[in-house]
């Protein structure tokens, strides 16, 4: 009987209020600053809902608990989001210049540097892997790996990953300018060759088989990514491709956002380690950008036709923002330089690269 008169006010703690404030901040950033609104809006609101007392939303039988259990704990949503991403991705720039795969690798080196930093900061190996992967700038991969290795860090790592992805236009340009000279930024690359339909169809099949044979633990992410791309390139399943790109992605994005937000309870989020995660995450991101650029410069020592080292910065998986930042920086020194399509090669290679790294981490830790 007394339960009828129970309100949430008497159970609201200071920590709940702080977390509701964090949720409101994320919602503000999403709406007002348009920072990754598709994820930060539901994450922010999910965090608000998770910190309102007596709702039972995050219990195993509650709405958010059920979505989290079947979507994230069962590892369904991140691979299916990769299906949608594959259907959205055009691999033609990568096919036109396959050596940009190596730039996709180079931009993942920073993940390992962040892993070492996280270990030195006192995190365990699985936690350090979850923190390091933030540098790959790949939200679904971060969520997938963190859920498997360190689920208690899911809220912090996901928010960090998506926040830094949204801040790519702020974070990358200074690093680019420090690590490259004006002459290097002026390098014009020759136009990309055209790719035939059969080559675009064979690509996801070949990459899927080879990558998964090498790194079986990456199968859910890489497999779904390649399947989505095959939907797109085959041209015979237009309905499936459109559904994967639109309806499926939109529905899964909603579920992913609120499920991740629901993990941002005060007990999980308000810890000193959260700030440390954000700090190491940004270091990972910066290092990944730097290693991408430096590897491009290293490749130029052996290449007759030089590549513009700016495209190395696009090796982080923030598609297509990173590529646009590279295009903008190139045009600042030479308005006739159109690097966008060249930068898309390492950009999409980075998505495959970060999924491979996640598979390697799973192989090391599990």
């Amino acid at each position, binding site marked *: 009987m007394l339960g009828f008169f129970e309100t949430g006010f008497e159970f609201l703690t200071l920590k709940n209020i702080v977390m509701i404030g964090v949720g409101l901040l994320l919602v503000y950033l999403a709406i007002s600053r348009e920072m990754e609104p598709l994820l930060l809006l539901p994450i922010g609101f999910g965090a608000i809902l998770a910190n309102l007392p007596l709702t039972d939303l995050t219990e195993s039988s509650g709405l958010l608990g059920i979505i989290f259990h079947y979507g994230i704990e069962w590892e369904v949503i991140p691979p299916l989001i990769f299906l949608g991403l594959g259907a959205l991705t055009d691999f033609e720039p990568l096919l036109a210049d396959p050596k940009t795969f190596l730039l*996709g690798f180079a931009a993942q080196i920073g993940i390992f540097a962040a892993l070492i930093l996280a*270990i030195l900061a006192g995190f365990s*190996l699985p936690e350090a892997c979850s923190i390091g992967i933030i540098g790959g700038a790949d939200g679904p991969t971060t969520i997938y790996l963190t859920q498997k290795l360190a689920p208690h860090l899911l809220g912090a790592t996901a928010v960090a990953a998506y926040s830094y992805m949204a801040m790519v236009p702020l974070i990358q340009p200074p690093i680019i300018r420090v690590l490259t000279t004006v002459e290097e930024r002026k390098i014009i690359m020759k136009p990309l060759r055209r790719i035939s339909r059969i080559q675009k169809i064979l690509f996801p099949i070949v990459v899927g088989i080879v990558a998964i044979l090498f790194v079986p633990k990456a199968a859910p992410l890489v497999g779904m990514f390649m399947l989505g791309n095959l939907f797109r390139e085959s041209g015979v399943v237009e309905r499936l491709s459109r559904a994967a790109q639109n309806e499926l992605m939109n529905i899964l994005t909603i579920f992913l956002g609120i499920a991740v937000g629901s993990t941002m309870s005060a007990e999980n989020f308000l810890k000193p380690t959260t700030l440390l995660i954000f700090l190491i995450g940004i270091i990972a991101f910066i290092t990944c950008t730097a290693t991408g650029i430096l590897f491009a410069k290293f490749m130029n020592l052996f290449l007759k036709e030089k590549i513009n080292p700016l495209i190395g910065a696009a090796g982080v998986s923030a598609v297509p923002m990173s590529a646009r930042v590279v295009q903008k920086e190139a045009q600042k020194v030479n308005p006739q330089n159109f690097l966008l399509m060249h930068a898309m090669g390492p950009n999409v290679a980075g998505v495959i690269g970060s999924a491979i790294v996640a598979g390697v981490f799973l192989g090391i830790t599990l």
Partner: protein
Amino acid sequence: MVNTVNVVELCIIGIGAVFTVLLVLTVVIKVMIKLTDLVDKKRREKKLFLKLKNEVFTAIVGALILHTENVLSSQKPLIDRHPPQLLWKFADRLKNTRIGWKETAKVEASLGEV
């Protein structure tokens, strides 16, 4: 507490593993593109060669018809009614086409036309 040295070793192995996978993927994709380009080129050459064969066949049949008409006709000989320039022009065109079709195949391949 994890041993830092072991972690550094693990990282080096991890970087090596990721590099190996992506290097193999680079090589495999390059080989795939080269092979498919080769198959495309052969298909294009075959298509042009068939076109040439058809034109040669048509020319032979056309010449035979003209010759037959010429023999059977009681009118002025066809050779006078149809000056041979047309046939010679056609023969020249065939000759140029025969020389040019391989170059044409190469140009089309470089343009990447399917």
